[in-house]
């Protein structure tokens, strides 16, 4: 069995063979004005648009974004940088009959004015008080506008250089630095806001063959701020390497009910899927969800406390205001096992997509356990692959890359690939007995209709119990 590098890259989501290149030199970066240079102009266009909408007897809100997405990557064959850019404007008009939105990718005076005309016709603009102008958004350091592609590549290469222990059994190694830089303006009556969201993700990947199956190991970090604010520790580099090289135990996995430790990436996968499918205002329209997850209902053990908090400094999924123009606040979702809130605030994929309730930065409260492996006998599940949460029932299927056997607080060395945890979500949450003091932050970036969505989850290692089984043949 062989896998080409292109397939591997596509499969891992590291890069698209269509949009990304590795090789002898990065393509030129398109010339572009820094967002802060034209912020005043954009806010003036948006104010004009809101005034025109109010002039037509409607209530208006204008949201605009100018964003870039830059990926620098290095793998076994070379390095490269890819740039994408997108602008967008969303004008919202409301009255007693409902809400209308006009969207354009033309972030110019003419483009914004044309979108406003589509909503308001040729109404005479109303006099609107917008309040004090927003203070200029802080520019991250180093200033992204001054960052050359070579600086990004150097940053990736520096991490690769530190990982001196790569074995010849590692058939693929890569490092990636991904930067989303979004300038967002939100203008409405008595509200003139702007923010610069500078999101950074670093990821290293190691792959080694184990029999006929590739074993993939990844570590990642995600934050908001400058590209040099965080890097990998030596322990993280060693973890990525050693996990890829670990030999899987031959033979069948003993399916059954086991004591478990869920690694933070697995916890993050479960929390992210459950929040989006079950604990939003939109999800609550389903009667099954409204009944199962009624306010104040006990849905987990006392060890489960979860807050959606976009105000956490430097959080990858954080922000100052959401895409409906509301200032960020923390929303408790689960308090010691009791459901106390839902995600209701509006976020738009890419800041211009359809408004939907979305989590921002979720914090699973840490516990008191000092050891991640405080287990008499059971398995440590790590390497999140996929989570299915069924909105119509309590069913959850959590696919993980590895189950590592643990006895008396120590790993036995037995490791099984391609395992799934199945059962009811509330039973799983109810089985959580403890969480570690230490946590990890996982940044998630996926897309909807081609527009990116950003969020992050801070999670500890959790002690739980559940039915674990091999997904398919262990051959």
């Amino acid at each position, binding site marked *: 069995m062989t896998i080409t590098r292109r397939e591997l890259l596509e499969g891992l989501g590291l890069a698209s063979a269509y949009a990304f290149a590795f*090789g002898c030199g990065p393509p030129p970066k398109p010339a572009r004005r820094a967002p802060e240079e034209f912020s005043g102009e954009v806010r003036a266009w948006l104010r004009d648009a809101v005034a025109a909408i109010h002039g037509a007897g409607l209530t208006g809100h204008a949201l605009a974004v100018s964003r870039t997405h830059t990926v620098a990557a290095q793998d076994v064959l070379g390095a490269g940088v890819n740039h994408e850019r997108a602008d967008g404007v969303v004008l919202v008009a409301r009255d007693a009959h409902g809400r209308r939105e006009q*969207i*354009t990718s*033309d972030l110019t005076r003419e483009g914004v004015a044309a979108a406003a005309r589509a909503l308001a016709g040729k109404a005479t603009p109303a006099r609107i008080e917008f309040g004090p102008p927003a203070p200029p958004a802080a520019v991250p350091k180093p200033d992204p506008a001054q960052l050359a592609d070579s600086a990004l590549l150097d940053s990736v290469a520096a991490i690769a250089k530190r990982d001196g222990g790569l074995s010849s059994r590692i058939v693929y190694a890569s490092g990636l630095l991904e930067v989303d830089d979004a300038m967002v303006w939100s203008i409405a009556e008595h509200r003139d806001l702007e923010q610069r969201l500078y999101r950074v993700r670093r990821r290293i990947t190691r792959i080694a063959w184990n029999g006929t199956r590739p074993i993939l190991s990844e570590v990642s970090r995600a934050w908001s701020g400058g590209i040099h604010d965080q890097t990998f520790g030596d322990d993280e580099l060693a973890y990525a390497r050693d996990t890829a090289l670990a030999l899987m135990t031959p033979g069948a996995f003993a399916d059954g009910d086991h004591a478990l430790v869920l690694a933070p990436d697995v916890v993050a996968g479960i929390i992210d899927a459950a929040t989006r499918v079950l604990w939003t205002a939109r999800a609550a329209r389903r009667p099954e969800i409204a009944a199962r997850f009624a306010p104040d209902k006990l849905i987990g053990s006392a060890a489960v406390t979860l807050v959606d908090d976009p105000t956490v400094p430097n959080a990858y999924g954080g922000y100052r205001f959401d895409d409906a123009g509301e200032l960020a606040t923390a929303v408790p979702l689960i308090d010691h096992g009791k459901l106390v809130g839902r995600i209701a605030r509006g976020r738009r994929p890419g800041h211009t997509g359809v408004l939907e309730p979305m989590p921002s930065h979720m914090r699973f409260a840490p516990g008191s356990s000092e050891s991640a492996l405080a287990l008499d006998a059971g398995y440590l599940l790590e390497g999140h692959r996929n989570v299915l949460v069924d909105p*119509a029932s309590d069913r959850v299927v959590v696919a993980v890359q590895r189950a590592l056997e643990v006895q008396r607080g120590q790993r036995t060395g037995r490791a099984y690939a391609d395992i799934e945890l199945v059962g009811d979500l509330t039973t799983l949450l109810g089985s959580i007995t403890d969480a570690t003091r230490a946590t990890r932050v996982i940044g998630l970036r996926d897309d909807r209709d081609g527009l990116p969505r950003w969020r992050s989850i801070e999670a500890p290692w959790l002690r739980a119990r559940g039915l674990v089984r091999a997904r398919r043949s262990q051959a």
Partner: protein
Amino acid sequence: MIDRRSLVRALGREELADWVVIEREQELAVVEEVHRSELRTRWQLTVHADTPAGRGTAHVMVDADEGDADKVVEQAAVLARLSVGPAWATIPPSAPARVDLADPTLATGEPLAAAATIARLIPRRPGAAIDVRVTLLREHVTVQARQSFHTEWSATLARVDALVTQGAHAIAVAREARRADQLELVAGVDEAIADLRRLAAAGAVVPGPCAVILTADALLHGGLGVWEAFVTQADPVVARQGLTRYHERAPIAAGADAVAEPLSITSDGALPFGVRSSPLGDEGDAVRKFPLITRGIAAGLALTPREAALRQRDPNGGVRNLIVDAGTWDEKSTPDKTRVIEIRRLRGLEIDPYTGDADLELALSIDRATGAPFAGGTLRLDLIDVLARAKRSARTIRRGPYVGPAAVLIERADLI
């Protein structure tokens, strides 16, 4: 702002072996609680660069507000030269497929009004609440290629996402079609309401061996449903590396050509108003109808211009709408002395792209012997093997990118 002329001029200045520019002028309307209207232009640029080491290709998506055509083309050319593979020569272009893609009733007038008209097609039923989102895409596509051909067409595409609620349960219904009258919303909603009644009375799953009937909503879960297993098997890159489950001109599973009604599947990208139909593919290649499986034998692959050239064949535009030959099975007849489970809806379907192994998480099923509905359960199936042998219904349906039997009967499965 970029326009086609500036892109073509910039392409002419680069030393490229071939290129194709596709411009999509799109109007998008969404009707739900909010009425949303969007105008956008999207560009797809494919360039091929020949070097002494071979030919490289780059596919670039470009936003109209990207400032400089020269820079975009330069970047695409660099990408192409950095991704060099084996040399191949462009095959002279064939005529685009003749196919109607625009519903006249959706193609004119205000897009939001047309979307609202579709929303009114949703039937109102006593005791049921229906939340609807209608998305209507209208686009005018213009294709220009270095080999001096120029073609254009218009298309409409409507998508309806409805959440049908009755009592304590809800079922999501999704339909996609290029014509409003092909959405079949009334049938979709009524079937959902019937299943909601069954869900209200559903018991617990009883594991064990059984025969399984996959009905339309389970069969086509998420779009092509279980038939997706055959799409990845037609990937020419995977096939060239020997990673597909079966090979061209060989049975797709042992004995698949010897069953009473061997399986035949065709990709038809020229199906009138097919949701995946198109005159040309994304690389300017003419879309063609071609067989994937003929009477149990693997018969064809999805061929891009590159893969076609490397095989000295004609490109076909890739796998598009799937046409599965109907069988003669009467859906009311079932095997004797075997427990028969009729699967109505799935919670989840995961297919291994290489092996065709699949996990089916069952949402709603009916025990045919007792007529009792139940919720839950899991099936693990080797989809290639079981679909090669499955009995296919004589009744056919057309839904989204699928035309074929409305149900299949799998005679041996293990419900867990």
